[in-house]
């Protein structure tokens, strides 16, 4: 047997987590990216910096603050307790929230770049053809930014699958509940189960390669000839 039932359950959990996080990130990231791509506000830079922060921050630092915030004494923890949800650390929900924050820049940046590359013109054209701003967003902006959305989805998914530090800090290592593949690999190595570790690590390696292949398929590195 190459993979134990335990391994399979971590894989299933990891895929569930990454799928859910990707969907939520596209929903949350799109308005942020839209605003960042089009605003002249003085808040643009500080907000950009906050959104990008998880990219440069050590995951343990992010995890640490999330743990504190969501803990019994933290502001988020108090709120969730008051709402009767209980505490989020060491739950799947807590893991989802932490993953969203951790992968946010990977979703926002490609979408923002796609909106910026599109420019103002297609939306102006849509307006002169009687499309309301909301109509133009769905019928012009979203289709034109499609490559950005594909990149954002793939990168968010892959990045969530690969996270380790944040998961360990906020989710711990509860089998079937918060134990993901990267943590499982760590456990295998700790326990000197190198063969098991190989199968999981190798699987992630192939997976990551395929992900990048998909990204480059939809976003050829040579920019497509623009049809104006």
């Amino acid at each position, binding site marked *: 047997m190459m993979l134990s039932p335990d391994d399979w359950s971590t894989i299933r959990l990891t895929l569930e987590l990454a799928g859910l996080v990707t969907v939520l990130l596209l929903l949350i990231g799109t308005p942020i990216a839209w605003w960042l791509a089009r605003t002249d506000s003085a808040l643009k830079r500080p907000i950009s910096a906050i959104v990008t922060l998880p990219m440069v921050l050590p995951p343990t630092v992010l995890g640490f603050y999330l743990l504190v915030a969501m803990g019994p004494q933290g502001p988020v923890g108090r709120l969730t307790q008051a709402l009767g949800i209980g505490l989020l650390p060491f739950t799947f929900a807590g893991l989802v929230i932490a993953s969203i924050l951790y992968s946010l820049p990977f979703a926002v940046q490609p979408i923002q770049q796609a909106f910026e590359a599109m420019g103002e*013109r*297609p939306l*102006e*054209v*849509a*307006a*002169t*053809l*009687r*499309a*309301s*701003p909301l*109509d*133009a967003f769905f*019928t*012009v902006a979203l*289709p*034109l930014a*499609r490559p950005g959305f594909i990149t954002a989805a793939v990168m968010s998914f892959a990045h969530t699958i690969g996270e380790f530090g944040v998961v360990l800090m906020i989710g711990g290592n509860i089998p079937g509940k918060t134990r993901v593949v990267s943590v499982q690999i760590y456990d295998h190595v700790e326990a000197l189960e190198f063969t098991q570790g190989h199968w999981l690590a190798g699987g992630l390696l192939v997976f990551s390669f395929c992900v990048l292949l998909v990204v480059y398929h939809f976003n050829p590195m040579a920019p497509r*000839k*623009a*049809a*104006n």
Partner: protein
Amino acid sequence: MSIEARFSLTYPTSASPAFALDVDLQLPAQGITALFGPSGSGKTSLLRCIAGLEKVKTGHLVVNGECWQKAGFFLPVHRRALGYVFQEASLFPHLTVQGNLDYGAIRSQRHQVTPVDQRNIVELLGIGHLLLRKPERLSGGERQRVAIARALLAVPKLLLMDEPLAALDFERKREILPYLERLRDELAIPVLYVSHAPDEVARLADHLVVMKDGRAVASGPLAEMLTRLDLPIRLGEDAGAILDATVGAMDADWHLARVDFASGSLWLADHGVAVGSPVRVRVLARDVSLAREQPGGSSIQNILPGRVDAIGHDEHPSATLVRVQVGQAMLLARLTRRSAAALGIAVGQTLWVQVKSVALLE
């Protein structure tokens, strides 16, 4: 019916001096009105203000009795019954030609606008064979024709065109101009046409607004405007009069056609335009000379009696522009100041006008 437009705005640009637009115009709500001027004179800004793409606080705009903007009121762009053709065709790359045409057509029908016959427009612009293609597979001229059709299918009450030919090469321009002429002659939609090309203006416009440094320095019917001597339009070699005329006769032996205008007729090379067709001809100032006595033994075929109406400066200090009235029409003649002095040219003087060459604008 007319279009009233008053706008004033200052762009907070880093470039100094800051660009300011300040216009108060009353334009006819029919035919093609050309907004003409050098780049940076505010033509495009004015067009964008009228479309509502540029949101100006101090603006007032009434189109055919319908208020689009006044103090405290701004009709959003998508609620304005306008068509806009940009300098670059700006077709939606994710839609086919048909998809692009339908985009505005469907939305204007939602607003209970009577749809126009799509086949007519498609045929008018000669794009019937392109409907299933994506924009990336069209030539520049084809794209611009699709963009014009797309704007027309949104059933505009006002068509705004921002240098629709400027991004095209000479051949593509020649390909599109006839379509624009048909548009002017067959559709009853007023057009505001931004251009800095004297040729296009002379050929297409009925009314001319001259822009300079963000202001409209003159506005009036084209024929009258082109023969004004006091305008800061730098037409240079292109200074000349236009005449709306009809083809009156053909001389098959000599391959010549006679065009008749209100107060005379001119011979020009026969371009195969049928007798009875309305044509627009242009007589450049440099092709017109003046004589005190009726010239005999001249190689020039077109000799008309006229009266000096006004004398003005030309760009070069050696030259002078003389406006001569021929019946109801006005022609411009460019003379050197020395020959004007030798002839003793004076306002009110009657003399003979020799026209060396007449261009058919088509």
